């Protein structure tokens, strides 16, 4: 529900309004639809010797996607149907990015350190920096959580998780 919180309530400047985002997202979707149509035609959207070609179905899917996107653009620009509600204000954007950006760093860290070590670091740092918890408490909580996951996946259910290119947990023997 996007228009519950008006800018007056939250008291923070609105960064962007719904109608603007709506138009941009619909434009991107239109391009995706167009790409699907072009690619489907390349694959053969018509009738081949042995029946409908590989692009037959995607061609129509892309077509409907593009046309619907045009419909949304029309609605988002029209005076009557347009939604002037705040999409996001500065405070909200900050909160969202404070979760999203660390999550990206976390996924990058998984690559090198593996799921377990990266997860422990991520939970601990999240608690210290965003939750303002004391370091020791954060460390203990994160290690306990990750240890539970380790027992559950590696030991009980025998589903190995990614150990990372550096394999910091090699000494455990899993």
């Amino acid at each position, binding site marked *: *529900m996007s228009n519950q919180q008006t800018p007056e309530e939250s008291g923070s400047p609105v960064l962007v309004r719904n109608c603007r985002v*709506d138009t941009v997202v619909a434009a991107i979707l239109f391009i995706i639809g167009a790409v699907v149509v072009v690619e489907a035609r390349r694959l053969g959207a018509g009738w081949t010797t042995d029946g409908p070609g590989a692009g037959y179905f995607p061609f129509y899917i892309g077509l409907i996607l593009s046309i619907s996107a045009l419909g949304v653009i029309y609605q988002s620009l029209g005076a009557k149907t347009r939604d002037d509600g705040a999409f996001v204000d500065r405070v909200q954007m900050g909160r969202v990015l404070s979760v999203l950006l660390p999550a990206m760093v976390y996924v990058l860290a998984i690559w090198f350190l593996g799921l377990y070590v990266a997860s422990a670091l991520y939970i601990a740092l999240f608690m210290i920096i965003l939750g303002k918890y004391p370091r020791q408490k954060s460390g203990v909580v994160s290690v306990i959580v990750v240890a539970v996951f380790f027992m559950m996946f590696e030991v009980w259910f025998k589903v190995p998780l990614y150990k990372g290119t550096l394999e910091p947990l090699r000494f455990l023997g899993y």
Partner: protein
Amino acid sequence: MEEIGSLMQGFAVVLTPVNIGLMFVGIILGVLIGVLPGLGGANGVAILLPLTFPMSPTSAIVMLSCIYWGALFGGAITSILFNIPGEPWSVATTFDGYPMAQQGHAGQALTAAFTSSFIGAFVAVLMITFTAPLVAKFALKFGAPEFFAVYLLTFCSFVGMGKGSPFKILISMTLGFALAAVGMDTVTGQLRLTFGQTELMRGFDFLIAVIGLFGIGEILLSMEEGLKFQGKSARINAKVVWETWKTLPKYWATSIRSSLVGIWMGITPGGATPASFMSYGLAKKFSKNGAKFGTGEIEGVIAPETAAHAAGTSALLPMLALGIPGSPTAAVLLGGLLIWGLQPGPLLFVEQKDFVWGLIASMYLGNLVGLIVVLTTVPLFASILRIPFSIIAPVIIVICAIGAYTVHSAMLDIWFMLGFGIVGYVFKKLDYPLAPLVLALVLGDKAEDSFRQAMLASQGELSIMWSNALVGSITMLALLMLCWPLIAKALQVIRAPKADEFAAQRPVD
């Protein structure tokens, strides 16, 4: 009664100590999922799906379906105690549930909610027991055009029954189909929409999409609100439960009406959310105390909960009998069936009798176990909600990452999950429905196959969709659904429009 015999056999299959244990584990995990923000029925089942790969299909489905029941039960706890709907279908429960908790009647509200959930589910399972075999028998006569017509009906129903812009519903659906087309074409073996990237050959797995769209998207949304939980405490003891149970038979009419609404909305992919709102609205209209709804009427808790559970349960009927799920969670369960090598659809009733009846028997038992578990453990789960969000949020993101990784043991999938999370956040804010996207992603290949087979049979003539009475009527119904937004507009011009009083509160899903 052939069905009763088969059902008894099903009970025999399910009633092993291991399966009963898994049932309890499933329910507890499910309630946990339902209570935690960011984890819901669909992505919870998706994350836990890989854990069940080593089990036998029957044990696996018992545990997974119990997670689903648990999640349905769990949604009510947060609605009543915290005024935060844990799931979209429990929004209507907050209208009367939270006022009751504020007046100190949290115990009654919870008991009423859980009991009516159980009743709704029970009625729906009864319906499944007796109609699923008939539907399956009927569906054995289906050919490719009939199946495509049913797929068409499923997707057109989203347009006809959904809330919000029909264009957005169509976009969400076609985007799902487009993503499903990525990878190897099942008929010709050509690579489609991969643009030369070998990593894309696998295509997009819907489990990754579900985890990202619902899990990460939800966390971003909750974070934006700067969520702080302030809940009422609940004490449920045997006396409160008993006192509440004594008052419940008074509301038998509401229960039956809500069950029927739920069953209908569950089979057609309207889903649990509109069912709960419709049933709340009807209860308000028919009740003697209608005017007091919204101030803490127990009937206002019974109606939406019964309907939501009846809908959630009956969504499994089309999944089992036709292989077409009625909700995103049913779609995830269907994905599980495919992974275990079971082909959902009419033949399942012939070839995998034990499995099907085991599942149906586990629906009865699972809901009973669920009722017992939630009635006894509410304070425990309510205390989980008091854990600060800055601990819960990173743990849930970690769980989502693990879930995404275990599907294919592929690192790239974790990135896709984050990407889907951003898409989910933006789509939710712009009122794009997510359910059609997920269903299209799951059913994309199958819908396309049946379409191509039908076209092949007719040499490209679309008239095959009207070639006999059966396929013709399903197709007509589908087109009617597709054009419903236009028809409704036309009707409004003729008649004065009827105001939908809960339109603003009802979430798009």
